[in-house]
């Protein structure tokens, strides 16, 4: 390679043999990360050529500048030499190079500290994932059990948490959720009405839109939509709050102070959702029916009075109470899932994000599963 009369000389690498068993590696020019440098493979290939050298020395008199680029090349070469038991003599290189390499090798690698890379096949990974899903259900039920025991302590007045915490959480998941619950329930009512309107009109049965919206909202949609809103809003918040507390050791601080984190943190959250979500469900049902009435009034020219009268005739008390009961169960699912994921949070800030995500996903999955079970159950029981 010709040396160029430029501002910086490019990195040069060449080889020579001092005698039959010594390879001289000549480095010259500018060995900087940014300017690009030769690969250690060139040296490895040179080592493979017969006669195989037993010693490697360097010639660096024309070395202009160097940084980590040269160091990584040398460490790669040193690794190869160590494996092949070839002696490496770096004395001809600048003193700083040798010292830095010695520094990198000072603390020996801790055996067993390096994490094993997972080389499982697709089937293995699929199998492990399935088993972990089952494990997740097990964790959820165990945690639910622990929360229930804490409720038992609450019943005898021995649970420890602050009333002010409970009040703040009630305000947050109840009063502050009004806006979004109003909007979404109204729109769900409108959508349900739209879906039914066109078809029912064909049969001249437009008035039954009140039945459709009323029964759908009250039996299922009001509860499910409210619960899903709370999962995204409150479940994620619980997971993020408790996850952050885990990262900063605030939960450990509670434990070592002799205060149960379950009683102090989880109980107020579960109680708050348990109290607020039925109220929000009733509210969502009303707003949904109202949304349907708007569609009925504008699209189908059914008066509000007629609509509400038909709605009152259609829905029964068992529908309303059943819907509220289901929604309460969903609410407990959201609170338990959110708190569980928070406690399981890992030790980094990205883990808090993961905790919030899995809280929402777990909540929604279990809500929908519960909805299905209830549908079957209520049908069998004739409710």
């Amino acid at each position, binding site marked *: 390679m010709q040396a160029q009369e430029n501002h910086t000389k490019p990195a040069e690498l060449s080889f020579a043999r001092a005698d039959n068993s010594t390879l001289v590696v000549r480095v010259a020019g500018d060995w900087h990360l940014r300017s690009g440098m030769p690969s250690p493979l060139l040296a490895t290939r040179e080592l493979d050529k017969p006669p195989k050298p037993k010693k490697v020395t360097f010639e660096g008199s024309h070395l202009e500048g160097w940084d980590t680029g040269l160091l990584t090349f040398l460490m790669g070469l040193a690794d190869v030499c160590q494996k092949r038991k070839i002696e490496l003599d770096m004395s001809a290189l600048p003193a700083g190079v040798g010292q830095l390499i010695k520094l990198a090798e000072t603390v020996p690698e801790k055996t067993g500290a390096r994490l094993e890379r997972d080389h499982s096949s697709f089937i293995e990974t699929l199998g492990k994932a399935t088993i972990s899903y089952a494990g997740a259900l097990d964790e959820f039920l165990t945690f639910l059990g622990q929360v229930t025991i804490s409720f038992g302590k609450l019943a005898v007045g021995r649970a420890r948490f602050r009333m002010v915490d409970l009040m703040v959480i009630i305000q947050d998941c109840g009063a502050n959720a009004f806006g979004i619950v109003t909007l979404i329930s109204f729109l769900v009512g409108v959508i349900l009405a739209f879906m039914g309107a066109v078809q029912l009109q064909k049969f001249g049965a437009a008035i039954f839109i009140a039945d459709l919206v009323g029964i759908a909202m009250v039996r299922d949609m009001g509860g499910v939509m409210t619960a899903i809103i709370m999962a995204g809003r409150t479940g994620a918040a619980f997971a993020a709050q408790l996850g952050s507390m885990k990262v900063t050791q605030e939960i450990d601080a509670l*434990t070592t*102070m*002799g205060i149960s984190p379950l009683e102090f943190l989880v109980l107020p959250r579960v109680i708050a959702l348990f109290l607020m979500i039925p109220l929000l469900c009733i509210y969502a049902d009303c707003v949904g029916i109202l949304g349907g009435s708007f569609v009925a009034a504008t699209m189908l020219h059914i008066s509000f009075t007629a609509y509400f009268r038909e709605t009152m005739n259609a829905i029964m008390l068992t529908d309303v109470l059943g819907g509220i009961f289901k929604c309460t169960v969903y609410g407990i699912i959201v609170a338990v899932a959110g708190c569980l994921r928070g406690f399981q949070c890992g030790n980094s800030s990205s883990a808090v994000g993961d905790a919030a995500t899995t809280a929402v996903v777990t909540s929604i999955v279990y809500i929908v599963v519960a909805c299905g079970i209830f549908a079957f159950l209520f049908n069998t029981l004739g409710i």
Partner: protein
Amino acid sequence: MSTPSQPTASESSKQKAAITVNNLTMAFGNFVVMKDLNFKVNEHDIFIIMGGSGCGKSTLLRHMLGLIEPAKGEVLYGDFNFTKADLEEREAKLRQFGVLYQSGALWSSMTLAENVGLPLGEFTDLKPSEIREVASLKLALVGLKGFEDYYPSQISGGMQKRAGLARAIALDPEIVFFDEPSAGLDPISSRLLDDLILELRDNLGATAVVVSHELPSIFAIGNNSVFLDAETRTMTASGDPKELLAHSTDHRVKTFLTRGEEDGKNSARDHG
């Protein structure tokens, strides 16, 4: 294992052991962090747990507090077997301890006064006004008078540590655990914290267990210690740090205590 300053058999039977660790092995799955740890912390000791970074000092502290279960061995407080006790007995015992975590671990949704006041409110029958007075006193003891209504996010790291200490001593605990108290503090603040720890021992009669690798603090306040060696993964020395410095024959212990001056190999800095 060099133990030049272990008291003689007759002396140690007179001193009551506040904490006894028997054959403790700490492991994460198959990875053994430390094994065969045997030591006693005497009453009114300032006991230093020292060793290189990553050798398991904080993990040992978490084992002693019951946050992690040991793979083998046990921890006793006086005659009370902490490892074999159930959750309620442990919770009751933990209320006699105070813990200062590395970054303070103050509850971020509460003010400093509320942080210090929480254990008081939960475990004593004091009225709210009395709780506030005691909290103010504890905060004043650590030099944070006037900051009662600040939130942890509004004060500096050093102040958070001191507030954490105020909370740790809220119930006048018998044993106070410190997880790297000097980490992140400037030399003067570190010195002030050392003085506080000495005050705790002298005037409040507490026993202190300190995880640290700050040599000035270790020599200033420690009167008993255990050295955890990362390479052999067990304890290799115990006793008064100053005695270890003078009489230890273990190479790694001496290197640690002299900040590498005793190391046979020359350091890079010695060149040129």
